[in-house]
């Protein structure tokens, strides 16, 4: 039953039995994390998805080093539309820019969109959903009707409207995507909250005299987090595709900023003869979207308390 603290060293993390008695809150969390890590270790596909996402992040962070100092916006009109080769791994586009460099730098735009949308959508969805689910009654009805209204906006059309009103740009694209992406999170959080709100452990906190916000933020929101994170990961593919679609339509990142959707669009006119101009960024979109989907699926299994 009792355990020695030295047994719980980080290097022995994967071998750590989960039922040992932790000696502090942080150790209890470490043990919990170790259980999740072990579950992750049993799912190679999830690790693959995670690896691609990690590579995406590294690409965005280390873009200058990875491209060896090749600028993604330096034009070379004499060397335009070069096929993939030793000089230009992925070839060059219609302005002679190195597609490998543009693809690596393009991870920055993609990651920025993904991160910004996540940062906006998760808190808004959680707040609206848990508040509606926990409070119920009139506030619930009002919040959920507002949610329904936002759910009815098509994100591409809204983005077009935003571009028309505020001008095209990556920030406006993010706002347009986020505005239409949060309602499903609010609904998810509301459904989870409704099933949690009437449990005895919430009743116990009410009886302790906790305020409504304390109950929401410290007791209900943490329980909704895992399903929201799973949902976000699964939605990331859609968000990346929408962002790429906006870029393709010229409403996302503006030239010369490298952005995968816009890169596909510029290669459109030469797609039959110089296939690499569109295909390479298209493949990047495909791989990253697929990786997020696989990761989301895997996370769902890992966070599922019923799976061992």
């Amino acid at each position, binding site marked *: *039953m*009792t355990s020695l603290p030295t047994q719980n060293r980080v290097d022995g993390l994967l071998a750590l039995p*989960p*039922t040992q*008695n*932790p*000696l*502090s*809150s942080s*150790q*209890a969390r470490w043990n*919990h994390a170790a259980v999740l890590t072990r579950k992750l270790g049993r799912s190679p596909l999830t690790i693959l998805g995670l690896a691609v996402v990690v590579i995406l992040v590294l690409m965005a962070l280390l873009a200058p080093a990875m491209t060896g100092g090749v600028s993604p916006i330096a034009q070379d009109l004499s060397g335009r539309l070069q096929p993939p080769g030793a000089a230009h791994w992925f070839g060059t586009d219609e302005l002679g820019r190195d597609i490998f460099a543009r693809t690596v730098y393009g991870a920055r735009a993609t990651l920025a969109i993904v991160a910004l949308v996540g940062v906006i959508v998760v808190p808004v969805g959680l707040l609206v959903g848990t508040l509606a689910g926990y409070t119920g009654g009139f506030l619930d009805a009002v919040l959920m009707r507002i949610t329904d209204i936002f759910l009815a906006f098509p994100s591409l059309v809204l983005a077009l409207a935003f571009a028309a009103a505020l001008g095209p740009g990556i920030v406006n694209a993010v706002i347009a995507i986020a505005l239409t992406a949060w309602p499903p999170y609010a609904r998810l959080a509301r459904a989870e909250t409704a099933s949690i709100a009437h*449990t*005895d*452990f919430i*009743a*116990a*906190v*009410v*009886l*302790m*005299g*906790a305020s409504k916000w*304390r109950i929401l933020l*410290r*007791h209900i929101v*943490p*329980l909704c987090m895992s399903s929201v994170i799973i949902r976000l990961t699964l939605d990331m593919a859609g968000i990346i595709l929408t962002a790429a679609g906006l870029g393709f339509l010229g409403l996302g990142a503006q030239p010369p900023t490298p952005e995968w959707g816009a890169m596909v669009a510029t290669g459109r006119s030469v797609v039959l003869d110089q296939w690499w101009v569109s295909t390479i960024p298209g493949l990047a979109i495909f791989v990253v979207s697929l990786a997020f989907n696989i990761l989301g699926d895997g996370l769902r299994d890992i966070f599922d*308390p019923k799976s061992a």
Partner: protein
Amino acid sequence: MNPPMIAVQNLSVSFKGPHGPVSAVRDLSFAVEPGETFGIVGESGSGKSTVLRAIAGLVAASGGHIRMAGEALGLRRTKAQRSAMQMVFQDPYASLHPRHTVDRALQEPLAIHAIAEPERLITTAMADVDLDPALRFRYPHQLSGGQRQRVAIARALILSPKLLLLDEPTSALDVSVQAEVLNLFQTIRSTRALTSLLVSHDLAVVAHLCERVAVMQRGTLVEVLTAEALRRGEARHPYTHTLLAASRGYRRVGSPHEGMPLAPS
């Protein structure tokens, strides 16, 4: 004379149903004196748990008054009113937050009421309910049913309430653990100046712990009798007799062994 610790007057509770309101508790009145352990028994659906939840302020009363030490209680309560009354729930698997360790569960009430010295209080609270200190940083899913119920009891007692509400605290536990938890309640009662309100369908448990017992049937109070009278079978109301008979065991009507507990076959 001091006012009773808890006084319920003409309490009614009704819930919204598909065909209009369904009344769960009708015109119920009783009073519990300070230091007393008062039991409420009745079959499933008799409204006994609803009475407890109304007193705790978890469900709204549709009529009547609830007074604690003379002070009227509504659905909205102050922190002081909350901490004076704590509850232990029936199902220890549902009454602890699944992502909170024992430590966090006991920390929470102290944090809400900004009570100093949480470290010392948590250690004593765990010792008071005979919980192994080694279990302090375990999650509920790493505890047995009996251990969980001890955590729930420790959590209820850590705020030093005047009134403890017990909603079938042993019915979800297996028999040997039931006995341990009942003995724990006996000890707690003898060491603290605590008034308790115990709801149970188990006449034996109620007769064991309580001084007075209220019998409920279909949302109304049938009678209030002393535990002594209950043990002697001196009930006045026919429904109480039915309950008493049912608690003695099953018997087959018209069989030669009528009146005898059914022997295990």
